[in-house]
């Protein structure tokens, strides 16, 4: 953008550029990406490589074809590629990863004008499209360390699809979680490459909050509302914690529901957005036919963002809201 443009106050120059923000996001994503590669092996690394490279190539090509200023160096395509890769199963065929990158970068991002103009989070939208188009590949889950010779089964249930184990002891009925608390925290469970390692995701999220890249409002509202609803519904702290650690809730809350372009600007708006995501995730997980609802929830709330922004418009101090045109004058 070379022309002059007017933006609202405050006008303050900082060293924070888009590229720097994106770099910090990449750093925050790395621990869980690395964990994913450790758990799911070389094929996970290949999915990452293909996603990142194809996202960058698609970004560069589409800017060139559209004769727009080149934006590859702002690293946003790298973040999109990384996020998309983290949201795919490790065994995703690589051509599907390329299709996903195309949808994310070309269709969702560049056709709407590039960075800052997209209506939905590119990685989320691409994941949903892939989920509906290639349901089979997108729901095949390998177990951690499947690429080594140690495990004899290769595919297994994820925390969201595994059934709880019933048993009774001393006349009371119990339901045991299919994964241990340690496995859930550490991420040694089936799932998308980058969503399983809860500790790494939480660490990355806290890093972004401390460096003020993201506001804590959305993740707190998202996870909090989901936890509250789950606790009311199940009446069990174990199931609530399990639900938070399972699936894409953490990666969604920290990294995708906090995207600048597609989420509300004001803190009030961010809280509404987070609660909406939490509510929809809860509904889809418990009453829908899909085991996971995080991506649908974020995508739907992305679409509501313009309305949330409109409703939570901050009133400049001392300013008067524009009055509605008077219907009739001098009635008194």
């Amino acid at each position, binding site marked *: 953008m070379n022309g002059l443009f007017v933006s609202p106050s405050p006008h303050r120059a900082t060293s924070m550029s888009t590229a720097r923000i994106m770099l910090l996001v990449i750093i925050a994503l790395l621990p869980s990406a690395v964990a994913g590669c450790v758990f799911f092996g070389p094929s996970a690394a290949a999915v990452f490589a293909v996603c990142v490279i194809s996202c960058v190539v698609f970004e560069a090509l589409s800017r060139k074809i559209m004769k727009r200023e080149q934006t590859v160096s702002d690293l946003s395509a790298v973040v999109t590629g990384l996020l998309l890769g983290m949201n795919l199963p490790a065994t995703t065929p690589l051509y599907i990863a390329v299709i996903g990158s195309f949808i994310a970068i070309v269709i969702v991002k560049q056709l709407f004008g590039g960075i800052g103009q997209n209506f939905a989070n590119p990685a989320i939208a691409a994941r949903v499209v892939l989920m*509906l*188009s*290639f*349901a*089979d590949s997108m*729901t095949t889950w390998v177990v951690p360390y499947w690429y080594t010779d140690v495990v004899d089964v290769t595919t297994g*249930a994820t925390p969201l*699809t595994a059934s*709880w*184990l*019933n*048993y009774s002891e001393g006349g*009371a*009925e*119990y*339901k*045991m*979680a*299919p*994964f*241990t*608390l340690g*496995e859930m925290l550490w991420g040694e469970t089936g799932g998308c490459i980058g969503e399983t390692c809860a500790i790494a995701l939480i660490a990355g999220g806290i890093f972004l909050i401390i460096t003020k890249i993201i506001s804590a409002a959305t993740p707190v509202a998202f996870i909090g509302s989901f936890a509250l609803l789950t606790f009311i519904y*199940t*009446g*069990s702290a*174990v*199931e609530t914690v*399990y639900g938070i650690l399972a699936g894409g809730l953490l990666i969604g809350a920290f990294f995708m529901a906090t995207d600048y372009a597609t989420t509300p600007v004001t803190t009030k708006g961010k809280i509404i957005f987070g609660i909406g995501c939490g509510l929809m995730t809860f509904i889809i997980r418990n009453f829908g*036919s*899909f*085991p996971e609802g995080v991506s649908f929830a974020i995508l739907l709330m992305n679409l509501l963002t313009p309305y949330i922004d409109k409703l939570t418009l901050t009133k400049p101090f001392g300013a008067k809201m524009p009055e509605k045109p008077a219907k009739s004058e001098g009635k008194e």
Partner: protein
Amino acid sequence: MFFKEKIKPPLVLTLICLITCGLLVAAYEATYVDTTGIITDKLQTGLTEVYGHFEDFEMLLNDDGTVRTYDGVTSILSDGKYTAFEITADGYSKGGLHVLVGLDENGTVKGVSIMTIGETPGLGTKVQNTDFLNQFSGVTYEQTIETDSGEPVKAKSVWGSRAEIQSLKREQELTDTNSSVNFTLDTVTGATFSSKGMYDAVKTALAAYNQMEGGAE
């Protein structure tokens, strides 16, 4: 002004929808072929899939010449030895599963054939998988009767260690394989409703057969 901005656009859209629906209904009515009482190509394919042949099968009729039906069963086909039931069951979409459940001479399930499926492509349609369908073979009416376990006990959820989880899993597998009393359905991941719909179809067929054997003759 108010009418033009707020009322007119939705009104026009509603009208367009109504007219389109009307045309659709008209087209459906005009081209509808009543296949009641006829063993259609789909039924023939279904029968061949289950029994290997369809030639000797006839549709059972009531005394007054109408097609014999049961609760949930559209038609019954029999060659004197085997009985097959045409059933439309609800999967994820209402009436999304149009299946033929074939029983053998003893009244146990011989095979299930899906004639048309209107489920979510890629997810619900996974129930067409032979591994999934094969689990119904040999299921008897007795196995599908739900045992009333009384008031559901609210189980307390707990965390377990890996060893505890493994031993519970092993225990459950053992009881599953040893129990001949109840049929346990292995649902297809991501297609829970469709899987349950298929099981409902099998249950309906077995119940209808049981009713036929017990009541009519």
